Structures are given as structure tokens and as C-alpha cells.
């Protein structure tokens, strides 16, 4: 049934494209129904699927003469991320309820994007995974270029080119892996069980890992992320930060690290203190955490604050992966979920609730508007989401960051100190943005044109994202029970060598 998440989204894209241009309400409703259907399917699978081990969802020959199959499968990690996609998809539709221009094209691209994201998470055949991974680029570009704001064409193009360069790197690695393994199969399990020569893994791993990590906002390849997020319309930045960046992180874990585990091993020599690719990427991740947080601290555009905070939070995920212990990697997956929900929420507040009403994102201009009075709902939402993203206990961010911190500590206390500094800076930038935007010295003049009140779709979307984050925060076992068995499948045996 889970495969229908993909089909429903693609079919929905076709339907909204063919609907008459005038019927905006009907188009939105269809898009919402598609998103809800996907969510419902994901939730059903999430609840029913107790063990978190790998199950095949669909398997059919596709290009059998090249050993390529239409193979969808889900394990615990997949299920969590598919559910995340479902939640963010619904919230995205709700937050783009006010789109008036070229509505059917907007939702067609939107659903195409959602469907491909489901596709990437569910694919077990690497050719199929790559197909979905690249389809994502196209709707992303058009969503930003057509419906975006500040420097949208630049931001969209930059994002598209960065993604495409990343995926080209991945493609080189995949083709090479396919050919070296004998060109029999593109199945992930089959390729992961093949023992590639060490020297091959030593160049293929960084290539594929970096290729995916570009989309995950790895420093110094992160620059597409802030400009892209800022330029994107609200729903697109929610999806972008919420799920698309997770595709990169997922690819790192699911493809690069399972295919080429030896690429993480020691080089046998040291360059500038780095002894392996693992050291390199771990340090880049920590730099990303600190750099993103520090830059977020000095931004004057509200969306840039959130954009750079995404870079910082994605750094946590990559660091979690590089700990190579169960708790760290589990933390990384939880952080994917957590950041997906919270980034979606933060972009929703800034892009939809504030920018669409006040037409500015300058912290200095938002301050005097007395927003805590004018838009109390937005204020409360931002405070909660901000708290959550600082890692306040009770929200999902806390669980994730704690696990990554423990994982990092086990590897090297130095890394853990870096992470700790990142968390502290995270508190600072959220606090600063909150203070400047919502609780600045209120001018006494009453605005003659008070911003329109928060609409019902916005409230529903907010509620959904917040509730999910709190649910994961209060009862992390909900996702942990699925992630742990998934990490113990033979697929990851190259990393843990029989036991973590």
C-alpha cells in the first residue's frame, strides 16, 4: 500500500494540472486530499509495522536486461521519513492556501515534488532511487522561480545547479559501483553485499557522500541553501528544509555509507591531522554547525536566520552519521525527523504568517510592528518552535541533539564540545530573532492597518507540525523502536561489522 503514496501524488499532480484555472478552491482541496491520502497511508504503515525490518513494498522487473528492477521497500528509517513527508506535505498545502497565481501549476509541481520525495525514500533499487532523486530538481526549480520572492531566479538556478552537480557526482559513483560489481544488478542489497576493493571505495565513498551531502547542506557546499530558502515561496521552503535536504542526508546514510563502508576507514597516514574521510566529514559537519549558527546570529533578514539555522541543524545530522555508533546514527535519523518538522514550522511562521501580511522580513522593521500583540498566534508558534529547535526537553530536537551529543562524545570529546557550542549559539540566535521580531520596544502608535488574522488552514498546519514534534519529544520510543532494528539489518553490516 505504501507505494500508493507515490502514485497518488503523481496522479494528483496530473489532475490539478488538468483542472480549470478558475476553480482555485477545488484545486487546493484536491491537493490537500492527495497530501492527506499520502499521510494516511504512511501513518497506517508506521503504526502497523512493528519490527522496523525491511519489507518489500513493490517489486517488478523494469529493465531486466540491465538488472534494474522497480523495487520499493521500507524499513524503520524509511517509515519514519515517509511519515515525515506526509506531515510536511499536508502542512505545506495548508500554508500555501493563499496562493492565487497559476494555482494549478503550483500544486502540480508541488505534488510532483512530494511524489518524488516519497519515491526516493522508498526506492531500494539504486537506479530507481536516482531517477526520483533527480526528478526532485525540476519542480523545486520552478516552484522557486515562478512563485518565489527575493532574487528568486538566482536562488532557484543556484539550487538547481548545486543539486545537479551533487547528483552527477552520485551518478558517477553509482555507475562505477554497478560496473565494478559486474553489471548484474542495481539493487541496494546486492551492491552493498559486494566487496569493493579498498582503493575503489576510497575514492567512490567521498564522491558519493559529498554528492548527497551537497543537498544536505554540508559546509562548504551549503551556500545554495540560505539563498534557495529565502527565495522560495513558503510551501517550497518548508518542503526544501523539511524533506528535500533530508533526501541528501538519507542518501549519505542509505547509499554512500552502506555501499562503501571501507571508505570510512583509516587512510594509514595523516594530512593536517585528518586520518580518514570520516575525520574530514566530521570536522566539516562541526564547522557547518558552528558556522550556520554564528551566521544566523547576525542576519537581519528573518528568513536568512532560519535558512542558516537549517545549515546548522543539518550539520548535526551529518555529524551523527560520522559517529558510526548506533546512538549517533539513530540521533541523526531522529534529527532528520525533528528538523523536518521544526524547519517547516519556522518557515511557515516567517514566510506565511509574517511576510505575506507585513511584506517585510527585516527584523528591524518587524520589531516596531508590535507583532506580539497584533499576531499573538504567530508569536506563540514561533516561541514554541524556537524553543523546540534550541533543544528544549519535551520537543523532538532535544532527543535528537542529546543522542548525537552522546554519540559524538564516544568518538571524541573535542567533537562533542563543538556540538555543545553549536547548541549554545543556537539558543542565542533564536533568542535574538525572537526578541527583535516579536518583543522589540513596541511603538505606541496603533497600526491603522492591522495585519489580517491568522487563518484556519495556518492554524491547522501549525497544530499538526507542533503536535508531531511534541509527540516525538515526549515519546521518542515511537520512532526509536523502528530505527534500531533497521540499523541492525545486514544492509548496515559494513558499518557495525556484526554488532554495534
Amino acid at each position, binding site marked *: 500500500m505504501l507505494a500508493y503514496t507515490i502514485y497518488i501524488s503523481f496522479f494528483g499532480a496530473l489532475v490539478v494540472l488538468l483542472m480549470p484555472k478558475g476553480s482555485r478552491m477545488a484545486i487546493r482541496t484536491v491537493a490537500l486530499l492527495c497530501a492527506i491520502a499520502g499521510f494516511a497511508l504512511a501513518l497506517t504503515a508506521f503504526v502497523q509495522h512493528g519490527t522496523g525490518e525491511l519489507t518489500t513494498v513493490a517489486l517488478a522487473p*523494469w*529493465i531486466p536486461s540491465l538488472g534494474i528492477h522497480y523495487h520499493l521497500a521500507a524499513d524503520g528509517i524509511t517509515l519514519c521519513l515517509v511519515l515525515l513527508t506526509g506531515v510536511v506535505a499536508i502542512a505545506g498545502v495548508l500554508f500555501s492556501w493563499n496562493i492565487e497565481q497559476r494555482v494549478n501549476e503550483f500544486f502540480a509541481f508541488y505534488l510532483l515534488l512530494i511524489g518524488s520525495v516519497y519515491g526516493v525514500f522508498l526506492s531500494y533499487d539504486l537506479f530507481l532511487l536516482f531517477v526520483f532523486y533527480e*526528478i526532485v530538481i*525540476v519542480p523545486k526549480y*520552478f516552484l522557486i522561480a515562478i512563485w518565489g520572492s527575493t532574487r528568486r531566479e538566482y536562488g532557484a538556478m543556484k539550487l538547481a545547479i548545486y543539486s*545537479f552537480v551533487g547528483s552527477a557526482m552520485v551518478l558517477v559513483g553509482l*555507475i562505477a559501483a554497478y*560496473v565494478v560489481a559486474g*553489471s548484474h544488478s542495481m539493487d541496494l542489497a546486492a551492491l552493498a553485499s559486494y566487496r569493493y576493493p579498498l582503493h575503489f571505495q576510497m575514492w567512490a565513498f567521498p564522491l558519493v557522500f559529498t554528492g548527497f551531502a551537497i543537498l544536505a547542506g554540508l559546509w562548504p557546499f551549503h551556500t545554495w541553501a540560505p539563498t534557495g530558502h529565502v527565495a522560495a515561496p513558503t510551501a517550497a521552503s518548508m518542503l526544501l528544509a523539511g524533506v528535500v535536504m533530508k533526501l541528501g542526508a538519507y542518501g549519505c546514510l542509505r547509499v554512500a555509507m552502506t555501499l562503501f563502508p571501507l571508505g570510512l576507514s583509516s587512510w594509514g597516514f595523516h594530512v593536517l591531522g585528518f586520518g580518514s574521510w570520516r575525520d574530514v566529514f566530521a570536522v566539516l559537519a562541526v564547522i557547518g554547525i558552528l558556522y550556520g549558527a554564528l551566521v544566523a546570529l547576525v542576519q537581519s533578514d528573518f528568513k536568512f536566520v532560519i535558512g542558516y539555522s537549517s545549515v546548522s541543524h543539518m550539520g548535526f545530522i551529518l555529524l551523527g552519521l560520522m559517529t558510526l555508533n548506533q546512538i549517533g546514527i539513530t540521533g541523526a535519523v531522529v534529527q532528520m525527523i525533528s528538523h523536518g518538522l521544526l524547519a517547516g514550522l519556522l518557515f511557515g511562521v516567517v514566510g506565511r504568517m509574517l511576510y505575506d501580511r507585513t511584506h517585510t522580513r527585516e527584523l528591524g522593521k518587524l520589531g516596531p510592528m508590535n507583532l506580539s500583540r497584533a499576531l499573538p498566534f504567530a508569536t506563540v508558534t514561533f516561541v514554541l518552535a524556537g524553543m523546540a529547535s534550541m533543544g528544549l526537553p519535551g520537543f523532538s530536537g532535544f532527543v535528537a541533539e542529546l543522542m548525537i551529543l552522546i554519540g559524538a562524545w564516544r568518538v571524541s570529546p573535542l567533537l562533542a564540545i563543538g556540538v555543545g557550542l553549536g547548541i549554545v549559539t543556537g539558543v542565542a540566535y533564536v533568542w535574538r530573532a525572537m526578541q527583535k521580531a516579536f518583543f522589540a520596544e513596541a511603538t505606541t502608535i496603533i497600526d491603522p492597518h492591522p495585519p489580517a488574522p491568522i487563518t484556519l488552514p495556518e492554524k491547522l498546519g501549525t497544530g499538526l507540525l507542533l503536535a508531531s514534534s511534541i509527540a516525538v519529544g515526549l515519546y521518542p520510543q515511537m520512532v526509536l523502536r523502528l530505527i534500531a532494528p533497521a540499523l541492525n539489518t545486514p544492509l548496515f553490516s559494513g558499518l557495525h561489522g556484526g554488532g554495534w
Partner: protein
Amino acid sequence: MTPLPYLQFLHASLPQVALDVAALIVLFTDLAIRKKSLRLRFSVATAIASAGCIVAIVLLLTAHSQVNLFDGMFVTTILSAHVQVAILALTIVTLVLSIDSSFTEHVGEFVVLVLLAVTGMMFLVSARNILITFVSLELLSLALYSLTGFDKRRPQSAEAALKYFLFGGISAAFLLYGFTLLYGIANSTNYAQIGAAVGASGLTPLVVVAMVTSIIGFGFKVAAAPLQFWAPDVYQAAPNPVAGFIGSSSKVASFFAFFVLMTSCYGAVGGSAAWENVHAGWVPVVAVVAALSMIVGNLGALAQSGLRRLLAYSAIAHAGYMLVAVVAHGADSLGTLLYYVTTYSVSVLGSFAVIHVVEESEGSDQLIHFNGLSRRAPLLSMCLFVFLLSQAGIPPLAGFFGKFFLFAAALRGADGSGLVWLVVLALAMSAVSLYYYLQVLKRVYVSEPPEIRGRLRTPRQMLTVIVLLAVVVVLAGALPETLVRWFGMIV
């Protein structure tokens, strides 16, 4: 001396005969109706020519005999028959797309020249003899030169034709020079015997000169850098159907002939282009040409303001990708090359058809005229979207699968994974290509349409063909199994 089997030759070359008979009928019919409207004349001529092509296709597909006549001068195999079918099918599409043209009053002559060019291509495909290779290449080229200059209203058309002719003449001279050396080495014009003689002599200076001149001759034909200078002008100024024709059918025939020539005549002196393991031979030379083409084509396309010139540079880039298959020359390289070149041809034909529609309405192919096209012609825009993204290599379109198929085969080829540097370069350059394809699509989908312009009128049969081509591109990419098997079988 045994009597030459002329009757057998006539029988085996019936498809070519059918084309030429169709050409004659076109000429006379057009003479009879020359007072009628241009559209009618184009329709009648196209119908007759297409009928000729269809008869040829049927003859090719039903003939089971494999012949090798006159010492390799005329060879038919299942492979050559299928390549010829692909060429004929692309020609039919080209002809149908030209029905609405108004660039000439000499309809009959135009269609006849197209058919003659196709005859040249068909002989080129079935030639395993340097003499016939050269003659059929000239037949093809001469027809293309005159077709390029067919639009007498535009001076650029004549300029492009002259440029094409001069460059073509020089490169043909190079080719002929090389072929005479080959004859001197082998005392034969047959590919197989030349291959044996070259193998026996090794990489002597004489062989090197012959090899380089052969690469020059064909490199010109497929518009590979540094022999690409004619391409932008010809693509820009030739009548629209001719530009599509040069970019599609002619590409298929030339690439096939190039692959066969290099692998059979110079099979023994290939050398290697593997990274850190380069050996002298034609392979490293072609590898350099391929790399140059990718770089020149993709970087050149970035600076273009007209879609035709942009497609010309992208054609140079694609020639570079396809040459990777020639460089690899492994067991399955030819199959992947054919998949790539045919599906690429389909998307080129489609793109030129869209350009044609826009030009008819706006008067030029400048990118600015594509602003807001999606609001003025949604279906047409969607087809252009498919054609361009396929060329950029976005899945699930044919261009992506072509790249995957081709590069995977390249790493399995003669040099094995030593060719990874070429694959990396190709994919890096295709990331550049996404930029300029998206620049076009940005105008189509993002920019606002000019205010006073209403919907764009697209002739119905034109739109039907364009949509069909787009469907082919999508299906060939999403469900490539049939084609993969087919190419695997015929090669």
C-alpha cells in the same frame, strides 16, 4: 573473373531504389501542380516521399537475406537494416514537420534533395569499403549543402551554406587523402582487408596520418570540436526542417559509419585512453576530441541568445558524449551509441518543430520570443519541456537513460574503468548544460508573456507530431527495456 551479380545487387538495394523512384515521382507530380498553393504542394510531396520511405522500411524489415556484394561495397545485415529503418523513420518525421513551411517555392526539388540525402545515408550505413563510404558521404553532404542554402529570402542561409560547403569540402579532401593512404597500405578498399593490413603494419607514420584524417573527416560530419565551426551558423540559418534533419538522421548515419570505420579499419591500432595508461592510437585522439566537444559545446551554449544556436552548441556537446561510446568501443558500446543518437535525434527534431512554430508567429528564434510561452501554448511548452530536459539528462526521459546506458557501457569497454575521467567530465559538463536548458525553460514558464500577444497558433498536424515525439521521448526513457533488448539483439 566471375560476372558481377548486378541482379542480386538490384534486389538487395530495392529500398534505395524505392526512395529514388519516389524522388522522381515527387519531381514530376510537383511539376504538374506547381500553380497550386504551397501547402498543398508540400503535403503532396511529403505524402509521396513518406510513402517511398515506408516502402523502403517494409522492404528492409522483410528482407532476410544478408548479402556482401562487390568486396564489401554493399553489405546488408540486420544491424544495418535497423539503422536504416531508424534513419527513414526520422526522415518521415522531418518531412511531415515541413508541411507548413514557406521558405521555398521549389517544393519538389527540396523533397528530392532530402530523399537523395537519405539515399546517401543508407549507402553510407551499408558500406564496408572506403570508396563507397566516401562517395555516399559526398552524396549526403552535397544534398545537405544545397538544402542549407534553400531559403533564398535569407542571406544568412546562403552564407551558412557556403561556409558549410567550404568546411565540408576541405574535410572531405582530408578524408579522401587519408583513404588514399589506406589504399596504399592495404592495396584494397575493403574494410576487413584494410584492418588486417593496418594490423600487420602497426602504428606507422602513414597509418597515423590516415587515422587522423579519417577522424577529421567524420569529426566534421558529427560536429565535434575543433571541427564544429560550421554548426552554429548552419543550425541558425538553414531552413528549419533542414536544421532538424542535419541534427537527427544525418547524425545517426554518420555516427554509425564512424564507429564501424574506426573499429574495423583501425581495430588493431586503437591504443588506450585510460587514465595514467595512455597508449598511442586513435582512441586517445577521439577521447581528446570528445572531451573538447563537451567543453566547447557546453560552454559555448551558455552565451547564446537564440535557441537554434543554443541547440547547435548543445549538439556539439552531445557529439562529445556520443564519442565516449566510440572511445570505449566495447561489445555493447555500439548499442548504447545507437540508443543515444536515435533518442537524441527525436528530441532535436521535436525542439526544432517547436522553434518552427514560434518563428512562424514571432519571426525569429531569439530566446526573448519564448517569454511566457507556457501561457500562450501550454501543450507545446510542455513538449519543449520534455525535449530540453531530456537533452539535459533528467530522468525519466530518454536522455537520462541514454547517458546512464552509454556511460555504464563506457566503463565496461576496452579500457575498462580507466575511462572514468571521461565519464566524470561528461557528467560535470552536463551539469553546465542544465543551466542553459533551464534558461530557456525559465523564459517559457517563468517570464511574463508579451502583453498584446494572444494564444499561439499551432497547426494541428504539427502539434500532433510534436506531442507524439514527446511521448516517444518519455516512453523511451521510462520503459527502455524493449529498446535495450532491440539494440542488444541487432548489434
